[in-house]
């Protein structure tokens, strides 16, 4: 197995996630795209852990999984609050900070 096959897969997942963040309007789908990006990063960490033969990459991957869970919890709480106040989760309609 080459190092690059995993890194290319992670790069592709990352780019698909970036496309999702740009293209999607629904806030829940934007959060899902962010999960894609975080998974791509995790794949890189684990691949490099095997390449370098130490456990640092695994530790970071575990921390990222925990942070991602916290992020989704808070993110969906925010989305719920926005939905309750504005009756929409379309990110285009949240233009209250535009001057």
């Amino acid at each position, binding site marked *: *197995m080459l*190092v*690059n*096959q*995993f890194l*290319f*897969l992670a*790069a*592709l*997942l*990352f*780019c*698909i*996630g970036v*496309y*999702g963040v*740009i*293209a*999607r*309007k*629904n*806030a*829940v*789908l934007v*959060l*899902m*795209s962010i*999960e*894609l990006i975080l*998974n791509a990063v995790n*794949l890189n960490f*684990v*691949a490099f*852990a*095997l*390449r370098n*033969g*130490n*456990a640092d990459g*695994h530790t970071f*991957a*575990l*921390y990222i*999984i*925990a*942070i*991602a*869970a*916290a*992020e989704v*919890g*808070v993110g*969906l*709480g*925010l*989305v*719920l*609050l926005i*939905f309750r106040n504005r009756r929409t989760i379309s990110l*285009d309609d949240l233009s209250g900070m535009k001057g």
Partner: protein
Amino acid sequence: MVAQNIGFAIIAAMMIVGALRVVTTSNVVHAALWLVVVLAGAAAQYILLAAEFVAVTQVLVYIGAVMVLFLFGTMLTRSRIGRDSGLNNSYAKLGIPVAVVLFAAMALALSESFGTEKLPSDGSLVTTQQISDQIFGPYLLPFWALSFVLLVAVIGAIVLARKD
């Protein structure tokens, strides 16, 4: 070696198709279910990379907990359960060149720096004991910080989502 590469190719193809469906499907619930495919594929890749503890954590936390959160979020925000044409921005096409250019830049950098370097096939495998030695050794302070972040996130999510 060949078997590993075949396994990698199958799982990678599955993950790429799943990821593309997550960002293109017009049904929020389908997007969540395609995301399960991607996350399960990532767990399988971790097993291929001899990271069984990370793989099990991925299944427990992502497929078990995060996906349930997403499905609840979909339900509670009353997104259309069926097809919905209003999921994309008006400038959604702008994302395609951005993603392509980003991938081209990363592919160029990766092939320049790693080329055809192989992963060690007989190297020392990382055991779960080593991971715990790392977490409760040099990375103890980030671990505490992480615990506080999780606590704050849980309390914050309750405060945000509570009906008062």
